[in-house]
């Protein structure tokens, strides 16, 4: 069937009421700001909405299949892959992206720890890693190096900065052994 963007015969065929269903309007609270979004194509994912419509490009599009974790955001306080969420289904919910993690000019402890421990090379996966790490610490899964590795396994790093990422998470969680 033809896309409604083309306004071709498909839209006339299915009738006016149905045609309205191809488009959704929704409300979303992102990083504390309420957005009213109108005329959105039903196919738009939360990831594309954040990047293309709200221009919050900190959230990265890696694989777009839920395999790499680069698009990790918090949805109602829980970490999820934004590429696997249909924007329409997030209507009325609350999203935090990497742009919303810092308090003013003060970085989140996880962000500071990633800098201090060199938790990245190219940086592409870093926003997802940071969002995942912040959630992991809240979930109480930073008890040991092994536990951190297991609960960070949904975030891939092609530069393989894993040892530094684990160190950063331990530091931010206060579970890093010193000396």
């Amino acid at each position, binding site marked *: 069937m033809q896309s409604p963007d083309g306004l071709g015969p498909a839209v006339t065929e299915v009738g006016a009421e149905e045609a309205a269903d191809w488009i959704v309007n929704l409300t979303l609270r992102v990083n504390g700001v309420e957005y009213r979004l109108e005329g959105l194509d039903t196919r738009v994912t939360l990831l594309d909405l954040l990047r293309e419509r709200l221009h919050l490009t900190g959230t990265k599009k890696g694989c777009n299949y839920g395999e790499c974790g680069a698009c990790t955001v918090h949805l109602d306080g829980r970490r999820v892959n934004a590429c*696997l969420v249909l924007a329409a289904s997030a209507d009325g919910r609350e999203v935090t992206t990497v742009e919303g993690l810092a308090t003013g000019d003060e970085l989140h402890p996880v962000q500071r720890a990633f800098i201090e421990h060199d938790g990245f090379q190219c940086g592409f996966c870093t926003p997802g890693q940071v969002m995942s790490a912040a959630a992991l610490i809240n979930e109480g899964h930073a008890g040991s190096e092994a536990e951190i590795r297991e609960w960070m396994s949904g975030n891939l790093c092609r530069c393989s900065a894993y040892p530094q990422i684990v160190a950063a998470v331990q530091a931010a969680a206060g579970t890093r052994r010193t000396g």
Partner: protein
Amino acid sequence: MQAFAYARPTSVAQAVASGTEPDAAFLAGGTELLNWLRLGISAPKRVLDISRLEGLDRIELLPGGGLSIGALVRLSDAAQHEAVLRDYPVLSQAILKAASPQIRNLATIGGNLLQRTRCPYFRAEETLPCNKRVPGSGCSALHGINDRHAIFGWTEDCVATQPSDPAVALAALDAVVVTARPEGERRIPATEFHTLPDRRPQDHNLLRQGELITAIELPAPAPRSEYLKIRERESYEYATVSAAAALEMDGSTIRRARIALGSVAHRPWRLTAAESRLAGMDIGHREALREALQVSFADARPLSHNAHKIPLARNAALRVIEMAARRSPR
């Protein structure tokens, strides 16, 4: 991705009524459906978002002593629920070894059973011969890359495996999948929910268009149960083979054993013949246990690249029985 209309039914009855229309698809966690839409595996004209349906996101004790897990319970919530951890550890373990924390926060227990095979030919971005993707087009895996494919229950039409970890635990627990459809409720044993390719290789499970899973029911508690997942990476990887066991013991004697294997067939594979032999055996007699398990492997048939999965599955079954026996009863 083909354009689709989006709607949110407000009751199970309404969801089922709209769902029976051809080209409608249910959206719950979305972790599978969105990828199907991208790959063209599914091209619905109407997506019915059931994720906010009330009453399907609860875990409740059943009067008879079992547990009902609502279809919309997120995997991460099911795995960490007190009653699941205490009474059905095999299910909690299987869930926590599935996917990633982010995916488990989205995916639902009902939707998990509906995930489709990870066969690379089925999931290919360019359509390749695959009887599950295009009925009648053939099976590319039969003589292709099939190291991760079935050793039980396959036919020349399809050699794919079912990839769900929770489904293996549910099969070992004799769980029941409860569904809603226009004619009313249906109860499907978890051991029969997924279909083998012998009749209709294009099918994945028994659900019909518009039929909606509402709950998973677990019978009596199985505190002596364990899940073992063998995979090529330590985490965030599908199983090469997996094994679930639920035991009832009298001292060191096995009173009853239920064992299911994962990633060896297009459904969780119960070792029923071995289970009857294991009853009455001593858990300490490893060689006798191994022999008892062997009877369930008489009909194992390797493909060109996966003969290693047969000893791997047999050893996994043995190990998981011993692991379950070591758990102290409640």
